C-alpha cells in the first residue's frame, strides 16, 4: 500500500510540474496558475519523501530500497537518515529541496508577479526532469517479492550524525543555485537586466555559497573522524565534484557585486550563474549515478547514466543556447583602474575560474576517456598538488592585496611592505619551530598569513585602533558597514583555513604498532598505554573499546577510547577513532584491528598540528556567508 501511495504522489507531482510548463505556453490564461502548481509540486513531492521515511521508520521491507538500506535494529535517527543515504532516496531529497525553495521564492521574491511565474515555469522544467528520473529509472518505491523478513542494513560508515546532515546541506546549496540560474535566463529571454535583479539574486547566490561551504565542511569532517585514515581531503572525484560548484559560486558572489555596484561584467555573471547550476547538477549526478566508484556511490546502471546525460545536456544546451543568442545586450563598458577593488574582483574571477577548469579536467577527463575508449585511467593527488595549490597561493595573495586596497591612500607601499615582512617573519618563526618541509608549504603559509594580516591590519586601520581611544574605536566598529564586516569575516575565515590546511598536511606524523595490555607506544612526545579492552554490546553493533592512557611529555592527558565496531547485520566493521584535540594539535588514535587470540590490538597514532584551525576557518567562512545573507540589507550593497 505504502509504495503505491508514494508512486501516485510522485506522478501527481510530475503532472503539476508538466502543467506548470505547458499551460502558460498554450493559453494566456491566469498567470497565477504556475504559483499554485508549484505549491502542488511541493505538497506531493514532500508527500512521497514522507512516505519513504515512514517506510524506513516502520521498516517496511516490501520496499526494495528499505530492504537494501535499513534494518529493524537500527537507531531511529539512522533509519530516517537512511532514506537519503542511498541513490534513489537522495535524489528524492534533492527534488524536495528544490520544491521547497521554489515555494520560498514564490512567497518572498520582490520581482513582479509575471516574472516570478516565468521563472517558476523554468524551475518546473528542472523539477519535472528530476521527478521523471525518479519515476522511470530510479524509483525508491520498487517492490521486492516475496517480502523479506529483515533488511540488509545501512553501510556502517554512513551511520554518523555528520553524514546524516551532509547531503541535506550540500543539496540545499545545489538547489539554491537554480534560482539565479532561472532568473538570469529569464532576463536573457526578456532582454532586460535591471540592476535590481542582481540585488535580488544576491541573497540566493549567498545562500548557494553558504550551504555549499557548510555541506563540504560537514563531509570532510566526517571523513576525518570516521574513515580512520587521519586525513580530511582525498581529491576523490566525488569531493571534487562538490568543489566545482563551490568555486564557481565563490566567483559568482564576487562578480555579482560588480554588477550591483558598477553595472559591469553582466554577461560574465550570467554565464557564471549558468555554470554554477550546471556544475551543481553534475555534482549531484556524478556522485549518485554510479559513474564514480567510492564510498559515495552505490549503483551502476547504464540506463541511469544515459538519462542523466540526456537531461543534463538538454538543460545545458537550452541555457547556453539562450545565452549565445541573447547575451551581449547588457551592461556597460567601463575602464577599471588596475589598482582598485573592482579590478581585484576581476582577478578573483580569473583565478577561481582557472581553478574550476583545473578540477574539471582532473575529474571529468578520466570519465570521458573511460566512456569513449572503454578503458579507465585515474588522476591522483599529484596532479592537484601540482596544479591546484600553486594557483590557490596566488589567489590568496591577490585576495589580501585587493580587498584592502584604498583609492585615497598614499602610504600604499609602506602598508604592503609591512604586511609582506610581517608574513615573512611569521613564516621564519614557523620554520624554526617546524623545520623540514618543502618550499611550497612555506609559500602557502606566507600566502595565508599575508591574507590574514592584510585583513586584520585593514580592520585596525578602519576602527582607528592606533588612536588608543576606546569610545572612538567602539563608535567606529558600530559605524562599519555590514557588507564590509561580512567580507572581513569570510576572508579571515579563508586565511585561517588556508593556514590550517597547510600546517595539518605538512607537519603531520604517524606511527603504527601493536599493543597488548600494559604495553606502550610512543609518537613524538606522546605515549599511549593500553589499560584494557572492553566488549560493549549496543543494539545494532558490538564494539571492542580500547582504553588507552595518554601522556604528553609526562603530563597526563587522559583516557582515549578508540573503538572497533562489528555490525552484525551488514557483516562489516568500522573503526571509530578517538581524537584529543587542543588548539595546537590533534592527537588521533585509530584502532585497525583486534585479535581476540592474544588480546592485542593494532593501532595507529597520528599527530596533526593545528587541525582545529581547519574547522575554525571553515566555520568562520560559512558564518561570513550566512551573516551577509541574513544581516546585510540588500539595498546597501
Amino acid at each position, binding site marked *: 500500500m505504502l509504495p503505491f501511495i508514494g508512486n501516485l504522489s510522485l506522478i501527481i507531482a510530475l503532472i503539476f510540474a508538466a502543467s506548470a510548463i505547458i499551460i502558460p505556453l498554450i493559453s494566456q490564461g491566469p498567470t497565477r496558475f504556475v504559483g499554485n502548481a508549484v505549491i502542488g509540486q511541493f505538497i506531493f513531492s514532500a508527500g512521497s519523501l514522507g512516505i519513504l521515511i515512514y517506510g524506513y521508520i516502520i521498516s517496511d521491507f516490501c520496499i526494495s530500497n528499505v530492504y537494501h538500506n535499513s534494518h529493524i535494529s537500527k537507531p531511529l535517527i539512522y533509519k530516517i537518515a537512511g532514506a537519503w543515504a542511498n541513490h534513489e532516496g537522495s535524489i528524492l531529497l534533492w527534488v524536495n529541496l528544490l520544491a521547497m525553495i521554489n515555494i520560498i521564492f514564490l512567497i518572498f521574491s520582490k520581482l513582479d508577479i509575471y516574472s516570478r511565474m516565468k521563472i517558476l515555469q523554468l524551475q518546473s522544467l528542472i523539477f519535472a526532469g528530476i521527478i521523471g528520473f525518479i519515476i522511470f529509472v530510479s524509483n525508491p518505491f520498487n517492490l521486492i517479492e516475496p517480502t523479506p523478513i529483515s533488511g540488509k542494513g545501512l553501510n556502517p560508515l554512513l551511520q554518523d550524525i555528520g553524514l546524516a546532515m551532509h547531503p541535506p546541506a550540500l543539496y540545499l546549496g545545489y538547489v539554491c543555485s537554480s534560482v539565479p540560474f532561472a532568473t538570469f535566463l529569464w532576463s536573457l529571454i526578456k532582454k532586460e537586466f535591471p540592476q535590481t535583479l542582481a540585488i535580488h539574486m544576491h541573497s540566493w547566490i549567498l545562500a548557494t555559497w553558504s550551504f555549499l561551504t557548510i555541506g563540504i565542511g560537514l563531509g570532510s569532517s566526517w571523513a576525518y573522524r570516521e574513515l580512520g585514515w587521519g586525513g580530511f581531503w582525498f581529491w576523490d572525484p566525488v569531493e571534487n565534484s562538490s568543489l566545482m560548484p563551490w568555486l564557481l559560486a565563490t566567483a559568482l558572489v564576487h562578480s555579482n557585486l560588480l554588477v550591483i555596484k558598477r553595472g559591469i561584467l553582466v554577461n560574465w555573471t550570467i554565464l557564471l550563474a549558468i555554470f554554477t547550476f550546471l556544475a551543481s547538477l553534475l555534482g549531484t549526478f556524478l556522485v549518485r549515478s554510479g559513474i564514480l566508484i567510492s564510498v559515495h556511490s552505490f549503483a*551502476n546502471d547504464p540506463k541511469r547514466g544515459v538519462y542523466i546525460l540526456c537531461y543534463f545536456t538538454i538543460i545545458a544546451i537550452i541555457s*547556453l543556447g539562450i545565452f*549565445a543568442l541573447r547575451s551581449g545586450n547588457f551592461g556597460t563598458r567601463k575602464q577599471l583602474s588596475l589598482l582598485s577593488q573592482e579590478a581585484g574582483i576581476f582577478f578573483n574571477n580569473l583565478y577561481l575560474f582557472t581553478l574550476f577548469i583545473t578540477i574539471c579536467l582532473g575529474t571529468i577527463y578520466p570519465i570521458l576517456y573511460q566512456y*569513449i*575508449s572503454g578503458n579507465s585511467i585515474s588522476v591522483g593527488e599529484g596532479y592537484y598538488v601540482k596544479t591546484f595549490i600553486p594557483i590557490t597561493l596566488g589567489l590568496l595573495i591577490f585576495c589580501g592585496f585587493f580587498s584592502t586596497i584604498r583609492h585615497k591612500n598614499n602610504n600604499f607601499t609602506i602598508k604592503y611592505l609591512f604586511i609582506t615582512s610581517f608574513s615573512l617573519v611569521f613564516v621564519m618563526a614557523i620554520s624554526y619551530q617546524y623545520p623540514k618541509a618543502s618550499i611550497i608549504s612555506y609559500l602557502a603559509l606566507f600566502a595565508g598569513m599575508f591574507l590574514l594580516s592584510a585583513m586584520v591590519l585593514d580592520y585596525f586601520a578602519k576602527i582607528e585602533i592606533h588612536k588608543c581611544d576606546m569610545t572612538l574605536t567602539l563608535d567606529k566598529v558600530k559605524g562599519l558597514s555590514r557588507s564590509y564586516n561580512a567580507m572581513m569575516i569570510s576572508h579571515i575565515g579563508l586565511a585561517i583555513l588556508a593556514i590550517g590546511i597547510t600546517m595539518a598536511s605538512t607537519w603531520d606524523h604517524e606511527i*603504527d604498532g601493536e599493543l597488548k595490555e600494559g604495553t606502550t607506544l610512543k609518537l613524538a612526545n606522546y605515549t599511549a598505554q593500553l589499560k584494557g579492552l572492553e566488549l560493549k554490546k549496543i543494539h545494532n553493533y558490538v564494539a571492542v573499546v580500547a582504553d588507552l592512557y595518554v601522556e604528553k611529555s609526562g603530563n597526563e592527558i587522559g583516557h582515549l577510547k578508540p573503538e572497533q565496531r562489528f555490525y552484525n547485520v551488514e557483516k*562489516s566493521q568500522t573503526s571509530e577513532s578517538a581524537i584529543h584535540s587542543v588548539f595546537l594539535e590533534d592527537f588521533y588514535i585509530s584502532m*585497525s584491528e583486534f585479535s581476540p587470540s592474544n588480546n592485542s590490538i593494532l593501532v595507529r597514532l597520528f599527530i596533526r598540528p593545528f587541525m582545529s584551525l581547519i574547522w575554525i576557518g571553515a566555520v568562520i567562512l560559512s558564518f561570513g556567508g550566512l551573516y551577509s545573507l541574513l544581516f546585510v540589507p540588500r539595498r546597501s550593497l
Partner: protein
Amino acid sequence: MKAKFIALIPLMVMIILALILLVGIKLNLNKPIFKALIGKEVPAITIRSIISHKELAESINDKPDYVLHFFTSWCEYCLVEHRKLVRMAKRNNKIPIYGIFGRDSEENIKLMLKKNGNPFKDVANDEYGEISIDLGVNGIPETIIVKDNKIVDRFKGEIDEKALNSYWEQ
C-alpha cells in the same frame, strides 16, 4: 560580431562534449566499465619492491601468468580480501600473487603482512600512482588477473574466488 562569437563558445563546447559522451556510451553500453582494459598488455612494472628491493618486473621474471592485487593497510575491505588471499595462497601456491600499494608507508605494509600473513610473492610501493594510473585502478582493493602478460579479468572490491581459481585450472 566578435562578442556574439565568443558567446557561442560555451554552447559549442557543451554540444561537442555531449556528442562525444553519447557516442561513447552507445559504443560501450554493453561493456561493463569495470571490465575495462581487458585484453590490454601489462606494461613493465618498474616500481621497486619493498621485500626483494628489485623492480617488480624483474621479480615477475618473464612468467607471464600472475595476479596483481592493489591494496593499502588502512582500508578495511582490503584487510578482508587480504585474509582471503592468505587462505587461497595456502591452498594453492601455484598462483603467483603480487601486491601493489600506494598512499601508505612501507612500515605499515610490513606490519600488516607480519600480522596477517603474506600471500604475495613480492610487494611493491606505487608511490606516485603510476602503475595504478596505467592499469586504470581507481579504487582499492582491486585485483587483476594477468595471463600471457595480458589482463584477462579484474575484480573491483571482492575477489570472486571461483573465477580466480578457474584461470589456474584450465
